[in-house]
């Protein structure tokens, strides 16, 4: 369906600053400018599937809200499907689909099927096309058993399938998904992923998704952009990303007491902060399980986690 060569999204030095006021003394208030998005430039072509990653507060959601016309940019230029999102918000809304994983756009107290029927009227979609789409989404996402259940009684996984359907019934050319797999169990997560891959392949729908789950990106996207402190710090292919950052992992371990750097086979301590130590290891020669076993032999630990790839990129970039 990607009939035109017009880019899906073009952002050029996009900026968003928020004015945050806070008290300084009894009446005086300081006004501080926070740059949530600080000169972001990128281009997404029709039919692409792009992962947009970054830690909380990096500017992901702000970018998405500007792309979709919810927020007005403070600077730079932006075109979504060739439209200025703020000026042509309702026109754009007709052509994009948006899912916010933590918000619902369904009618809470009504059966799921009613939401879809209402959206048919809101988007003024062709009746036949609507039935066709709905039928195929119900089948692909296995929703027939809960179509008549009020939305408030759906499980998170069921609701998310409903949200995806709601965002896609009007055949949008671009779909923006903000953490579509957050909180989902593995079965639902896989169902959602498979559905998105299918959508992109069969319909040529352009997909931009934010996630904390690197697994999502590996399974779905050919390209990923990483944003931190309001700037894009990486934009490229997923495979290339993995080969740059992918062979080393870091284990963060909190010991019960501060101790000298641990000596574990195949690892190197990169940093010690009191009881917290970071051990770097090479995935191609050692497994995380071996490293953890080694640590447990050496010292009493209170907490342990493996830092993900993305975190390491932030550290490298910032």
């Amino acid at each position, binding site marked *: 369906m990607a009939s035109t060569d017009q880019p899906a999204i073009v952002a050029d030095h996009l900026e968003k600053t928020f004015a945050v006021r806070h008290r300084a003394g009894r009446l005086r208030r300081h006004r501080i400018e926070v740059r949530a998005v600080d000169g972001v430039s990128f281009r997404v072509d029709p039919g692409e599937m792009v992962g947009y990653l970054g830690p909380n507060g990096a500017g992901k959601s702000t970018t998405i809200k500007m792309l979709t016309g919810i927020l007005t940019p403070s600077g730079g230029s932006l075109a979504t499907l060739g439209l200025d999102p703020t000026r042509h918000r309702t026109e754009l809304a007709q052509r994009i689909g948006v899912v*916010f994983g933590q918000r619902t756009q369904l009618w*809470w*107290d009504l059966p799921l099927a009613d939401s879809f029927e209402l959206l048919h009227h*809101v988007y003024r979609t062709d009746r036949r096309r609507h039935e066709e789409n709905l039928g195929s989404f119900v089948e692909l996402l296995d929703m027939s058993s809960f179509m008549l259940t009020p939305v408030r009684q759906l499980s998170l996984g069921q609701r998310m399938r409903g949200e995806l359907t709601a965002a896609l019934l009007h055949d949008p050319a671009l779909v923006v998904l903000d953490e579509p797999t957050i909180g989902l169990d593995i079965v639902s997560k896989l169902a959602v992923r498979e559905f998105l891959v299918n959508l992109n392949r069969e319909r040529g729908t352009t997909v931009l998704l934010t996630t904390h789950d690197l697994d999502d990106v590996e399974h779905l996207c050919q390209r990923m952009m990483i944003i931190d402190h309001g700037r894009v710090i990486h934009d490229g292919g997923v495979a290339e990303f993995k080969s740059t950052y992918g062979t080393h992992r870091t284990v963060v371990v909190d010991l019960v007491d501060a101790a000298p750097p641990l000596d574990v086979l195949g690892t190197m301590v990169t940093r010690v902060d009191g009881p917290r130590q970071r051990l770097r290891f090479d995935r191609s020669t050692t497994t995380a399980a071996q490293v953890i076993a080694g640590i447990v032999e050496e010292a009493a630990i209170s907490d342990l986690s493996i830092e993900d790839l993305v975190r390491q990129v932030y550290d490298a970039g910032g």
Partner: protein
Amino acid sequence: MGDVRSMLTTYRHLVGAKIRSDWQYRTSFVRYLLSQTVVTALDLAVILVLSEVVPSLGGWNLSQVAVLYGLTTLSFGLGDLFVSQVETVATHIQLGTFDRFLLRPLPTIVQLPASEFALRRVGRSIPAIITLVVALSMAEIDWTVDRLALVPMTVVAGTIIFGAVWVVTASISFWAVGAREVANSFTYGGGFAHQHPLHVYSRWVRTLLGWILPMAFIAYVPAVHLLEAPNPLGIPSWLALTPPLVAIAAVVVARTVWRAGIRNHQSTGT
């Protein structure tokens, strides 16, 4: 035209969905409907009691004041029913749910009142209609065609003016979260104040609630002409025909302010 019609269809479906949702909680629905009806009827009772003590208010007799009450309360009630839900924008902004409206291909100013439609608010308009009809028949009006036409015109224009005031005051929430009470003091306060003839108030109240917020055009200005009641402010009779123009101007202002508000919308972090 086709666009307006399909928008109305969408509006009707959204309202229908809200009524079905509310029906899930019917006890609270019925309780609220009753309480609104009673509260509005009590307002009227206050006027009746007052008229026992003070037979005329600013030179207006009971049935004249009752006409004013009926016109104001009906316009207020209809505005409350069809437009006042815009004030839920404050809550939606705080919860971050306003974004959902911005993502749909329909003006927010249509979506919000439709999606938050509360049928129970019809309770305000019922005593208002009864009062208006009874008072009009008792007020010894010299009925001519233009006076007859003046009544529905006033109600429609008045409803639109009230609606516009609601939109403007609700827009404050885009800049200052938690301003709902301030907004309500103008809408509810204005609605209550205009149940009495404007000339009983001091000059600054008249200026603010009558002319700056053009609520004098909701009922008082046309009522002076309709009733040929004492007119100490010297309202010219041609002014009685201007409420539709004021309504149009109010809509233009409301739309501008609302749009400016949306541009200033800051959303919330996810």
